[in-house]
C-alpha cells in the first residue's frame, strides 16, 4: 500500500449548519467539483488539497444528524463511509452546540472509523460561555480534537496535520465505546454471535455496529444482513428489551448514547455563564414574531424579486444586444440572400435558441444570489417557519417554501431543492406542483406578449396575475394530490433554527454558481439539442417556393411546408378550441422542449427576414396577426401546461420513477388545455376576439 502514503481520501461529516461547507471551501479552494452520488441525486462535493506534498482528496458528505436511514442524505453518507472507507474522517462539530453534535460522533466511533474532530466555531462557543478541556475530551473519546474557526480560516494547518497523523498511523483497534447496560449488551452479544459467519463482518467493531442497527430496526441494515431466522431473532430480542426495560429499543439506545455524551461533557466542558440572549436571539424576537415577522418576510421576498428582475434587466439588455450583434456578424459571412444551411443552423437554430436562454442567465444568477443570501445568513429557516402557517394548510411543509421560491427562477434546481423535505410524500407533492410556479423561462413569453397586446397600465398587473395564478393553481394542485394519490398524514415539521451568520462573499459566490451552473448546463445540453432538432423541423423538408413570391413570402412558404409547419397544421384542429393557429402550435411544440423556446420559435416563424430578428418588430407582426384574447390564452396555456423537457427528466430522476413525470406532464397539459379552452370560448362568446 505505498500509494496510500501520497494520496488518500478524507471525508468531511457533520450536522447541517456545523460550518462544514466553509471548512471544505477553505481546504479545497477553487478545486471543487460538484457531482451526484450514483443512483440518487444527493450532491457529491469533492475537492483536492495538497498538504506537505501529499495530495488529499476531500469529500464533503451531506449534512446529517445521525447515521440512521431516515433520509437519503444519511443513507448516502453512511454508504460512503462504509463502502469507500476513507482513510480519515473529519467530523466537523459546532462547538457551541456540543451535545447534539457529539451524538453523530458517537455513531462514527461505533463504526470504528479513523476520526479527527474539528471543533468548529470555537470562538462562538467561548462567547456563549462554554469552555472545553480539549485534552481531557480527546482522551475520553480517543480521537484528536482540533479547534477551528471556519470563516476566519483558523486551525486549518493544525487540522491537516492531525489528518496526516491519523492517516499515517492506522487507528488503534479499540476506541472507547458506549456501554449500553447489561440487558442491551446481552442482546448485542447474541446478535453478534449469529453474525459471526457473515463474510462481510469479520471485523468485530463492524459486527457490533450491525447488531446495534438491527436492534434499532434499521430498514437498510435489516434488508442487507438479516436472513429470515435472524430477523425473527432480532424481533424476539427487541420484544425482550421492550418488556424488561419498558421502552422501545431505539429510545433506549438513544438514552445510553446521550448518557455517554453527558459523561464526557461533565469531565471536560464547563459552562461559566448561563445561556443568555445572543444578538441572534434578539433578531429572532422580531424576525419570527407572529405579527411583525410576516411583513419582514414579505419585504425580504419582495427584495428577492426586485433584485432578480429590476436589477437583472440591465445585464439582460447587454446580453441581448451582444447576441443580436453576434447574429448579424455571423450572417454577414455569407452573401446577401444566401440559403446556406450552415448559416441558417448557426443563426436561426443555435444562436436563437441558446442565445435566448443565455440572455436570461443574469436573472437566474441574481435570484440564486438572493437565495444564497437568505440561506447563508440563516434567514431561510425563519422564512420556512413563517411560511409553514399557510403552507401547512395546503398539506405542504414550511420547508416546501424553499423549492417553491427557487421555482420562480427555474423549475430544475427547484426540483433538486425539494430534497430539503424529509419524506417522500412531501417531496413528491412539491415536485409535482412545482412547474405551476411561474419559472424564469416563462418571463420572456410574458415579456414578449404582454407589451405587444396590452396597454402599459396593464403590464405590471398582468404579469402579477400570471404569477399569482400559478401559485393558486399550485396550492390547489397540492391539496388535490394530498387528497388523492398522495393521501396520508402530514409529517410534522422539525427543523433547526441555526444562529444568524454573516454570509461570506466567497460562500455566496460558490452557492450562486452551484445552482446557476445547473441552469447553464441545461442551456448547453438539453436546450441546444432541442434547438437543433427544432431548427431541423423548421428547415426540412426543403421546398422550392414559387418564384413570383416576394422574399418574405417565400420564407413563409418554406416554413409552412417544413415538418414543423406540417405538424402545426396537423395539430390545428386540436388547438382551434384554444384559439391557436398552426404557428402557435408549432411554437408550443418548441415550448415542450423548453418554455423560452416559444419566443425564439415565434421569432423564427415570423421574423423570417433576418434583419427583423429583434423583439420590437416581432411584437408588431404578432399584433397584426392575433387578438389580445389569443395572446392571453397562449400565456395561460404555457403557464400551466407541458413542463419543459429538462423538468420532465429531473422530475423523473428525483421522484425515482418515470410514471410520476408522466403523471405530471399529462395532468398539467390536460389541465392547461381545458382551462385555456374554457377561457377562450368564454372570451370569444362575450366578443373579445
Amino acid at each position, binding site marked *: 500500500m505505498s500509494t496510500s502514503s501520497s494520496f488518500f481520501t478524507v471525508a468531511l461529516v457533520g450536522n447541517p449548519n456545523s460550518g462544514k461547507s466553509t471548512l471544505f471551501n477553505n481546504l479545497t479552494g477553487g478545486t471543487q467539483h460538484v457531482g451526484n452520488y450514483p443512483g440518487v441525486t444527493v450532491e457529491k462535493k469533492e475537492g483536492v488539497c495538497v498538504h506537505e506534498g501529499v495530495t488529499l482528496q476531500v469529500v464533503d458528505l451531506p449534512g446529517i444528524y445521525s447515521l440512521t436511514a431516515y433520509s437519503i442524505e444519511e443513507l448516502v453518507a453512511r454508504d460512503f463511509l462504509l463502502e469507500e472507507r476513507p482513510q480519515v474522517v473529519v467530523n466537523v462539530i459546532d462547538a457551541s452546540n456540543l451535545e447534539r453534535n457529539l*451524538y*453523530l460522533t458517537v455513531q462514527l466511533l461505533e463504526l470504528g472509523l479513523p476520526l479527527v474532530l474539528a471543533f468548529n466555531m470555537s470562538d462562538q462557543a467561548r462567547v456563549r460561555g462554554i469552555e472545553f478541556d480539549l485534552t481531557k475530551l480527546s482522551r475520553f473519546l480517543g480521537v484528536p480534537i482540533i479547534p477551528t474557526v471556519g470563516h476566519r480560516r483558523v486551525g486549518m494547518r493544525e487540522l491537516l496535520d492531525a489528518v496526516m497523523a491519523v492517516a499515517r498511523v492506522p487507528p488503534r483497534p479499540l476506541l472507547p465505546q458506549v456501554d449500553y447496560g447489561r440487558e442491551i449488551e446481552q442482546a448485542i452479544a447474541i446478535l453478534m454471535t449469529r453474525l459471526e459467519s457473515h463474510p462481510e463482518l469479520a471485523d468485530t467493531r463492524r459486527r457490533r455496529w450491525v447488531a446495534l442497527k438491527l436492534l434499532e430496526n434499521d430498514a437498510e441494515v435489516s434488508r442487507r444482513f438479516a436472513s429470515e431466522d435472524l430477523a425473527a431473532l432480532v424481533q424476539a430480542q427487541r420484544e425482550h428489551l421492550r418488556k424488561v426495560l419498558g421502552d422501545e429499543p*431505539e*429510545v433506549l439506545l438513544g438514552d445510553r448514547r446521550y448518557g455517554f455524551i453527558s459523561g464526557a461533557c461533565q469531565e471536560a466542558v464547563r459552562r461559566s455563564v448561563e445561556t*443568555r440572549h445572543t444578538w441572534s436571539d434578539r433578531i*429572532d424576537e422580531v424576525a*419570527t414574531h407572529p405579527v411583525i415577522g410576516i411583513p419582514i418576510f414579505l419585504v425580504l421576498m419582495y427584495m428577492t424579486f426586485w433584485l432578480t428582475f429590476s436589477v437583472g434587466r440591465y445585464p439582460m439588455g447587454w446580453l441581448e444586444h451582444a447576441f443580436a450583434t453576434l447574429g448579424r456578424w455571423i450572417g454577414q459571412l455569407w452573401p446577401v440572400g444566401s440559403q446556406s444551411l450552415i448559416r441558417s443552423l448557426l443563426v436561426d437554430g443555435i444562436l436563437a435558441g441558446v442565445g435566448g436562454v443565455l440572455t436570461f442567465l443574469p436573472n437566474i444568477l441574481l435570484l440564486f444570489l438572493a437565495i444564497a443570501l437568505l440561506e447563508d445568513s440563516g434567514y431561510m429557516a425563519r422564512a420556512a417557519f413563517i411560511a409553514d402557517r399557510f403552507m401547512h394548510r395546503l398539506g405542504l411543509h414550511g420547508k416546501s417554501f424553499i423549492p417553491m421560491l427557487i421555482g420562480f427562477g427555474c423549475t430544475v434546481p427547484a426540483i433538486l431543492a425539494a430534497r430539503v423535505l424529509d419524506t417522500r410524500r412531501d417531496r413528491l407533492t412539491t415536485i409535482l406542483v412545482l412547474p405551476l410556479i411561474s419559472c424564469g423561462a416563462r418571463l420572456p413569453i410574458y415579456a414578449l406578449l404582454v407589451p405587444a397586446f396590452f396597454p402599459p397600465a396593464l403590464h405590471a398587473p398582468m404579469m402579477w396575475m400570471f404569477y399569482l395564478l400559478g401559485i393558486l393553481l399550485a396550492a390547489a394542485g397540492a391539496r388535490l394530490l394530498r387528497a388523492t394519490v398522495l393521501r396520508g398524514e402530514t409529517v410534522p*415539521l422539525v427543523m433547526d433554527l441555526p444562529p444568524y451568520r454573516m454570509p461570506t462573499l466567497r460562500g455566496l459566490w460558490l452557492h450562486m454558481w452551484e445552482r446557476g451552473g445547473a441552469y447553464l448546463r441545461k442551456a448547453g445540453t438539453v436546450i441546444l439539442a432541442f434547438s437543433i432538432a427544432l431548427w431541423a423541423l423548421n428547415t426540412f423538408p426543403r421546398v422550392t417556393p414559387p418564384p413570383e413570391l416576394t422574399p418574405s413570402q417565400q420564407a413563409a412558404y418554406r416554413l409552412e411546408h417544413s415538418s414543423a409547419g406540417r405538424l402545426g397544421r396537423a395539430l390545428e384542429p386540436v388547438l382551434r378550441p384554444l384559439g391557436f393557429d398552426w404557428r402557435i402550435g408549432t411554437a408550443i411544440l418548441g415550448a415542450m422542449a423548453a418554455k423560452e423556446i416559444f419566443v425564439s420559435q415565434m421569432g423564427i416563424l415570423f421574423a423570417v427576414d433576418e434583419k427583423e430578428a429583434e423583439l420590437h418588430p416581432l411584437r408588431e407582426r404578432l399584433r397584426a396577426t392575433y387578438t389580445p384574447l389569443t395572446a392571453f390564452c397562449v400565456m395561460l396555456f404555457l403557464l400551466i401546461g407541458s413542463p419543459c423537457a429538462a423538468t420532465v427528466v429531473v422530475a423523473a430522476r428525483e421522484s425515482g420513477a418515470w410514471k410520476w413525470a408522466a403523471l405530471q406532464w399529462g395532468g398539467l397539459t390536460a389541465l392547461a388545455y381545458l382551462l385555456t379552452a374554457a377561457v377562450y370560448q368564454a372570451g370569444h362568446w362575450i366578443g373579445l376576439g
Partner: protein
Amino acid sequence: METSQRWPSLSELASGTVAQVKAIHAGHGLQGRLTAMGLHRGVHVRMIQNVGRGPLIVEVAGNRMVLGRGMAEKVYVHPLSARTTRPSSSEPESTKDGPGSGRS
C-alpha cells in the same frame, strides 16, 4: 407507557416555560430524528414561542428548533417553571421573563 399520558404535551407549554422531556411518542423514523437533533428523554427544553396555533419554537441545549404543532403534541414534558397554562396568545416578548434568560 400509559404513565406518560399524565404529563402535559409540549404544545401546552406557554412561552418562556422550562420543562424536562419525559417521553416522545413519534413513529420510528421521526423518533430517531428528534433524538439525533437533541430532543430526547431527560433533556431540558425552553419554550421560546407558542402562540396557540401553527409551529412553535423551542430551545434545546442552547439550540433553537422549530416543531410543528402536531409533533409537539407527541412530546410529553414535566414543566419545571410554574406556568403550564393552556397556550394563550402570549407574545414572544414573554420569553424575557423566562428563567435563566437575564438580559445582557
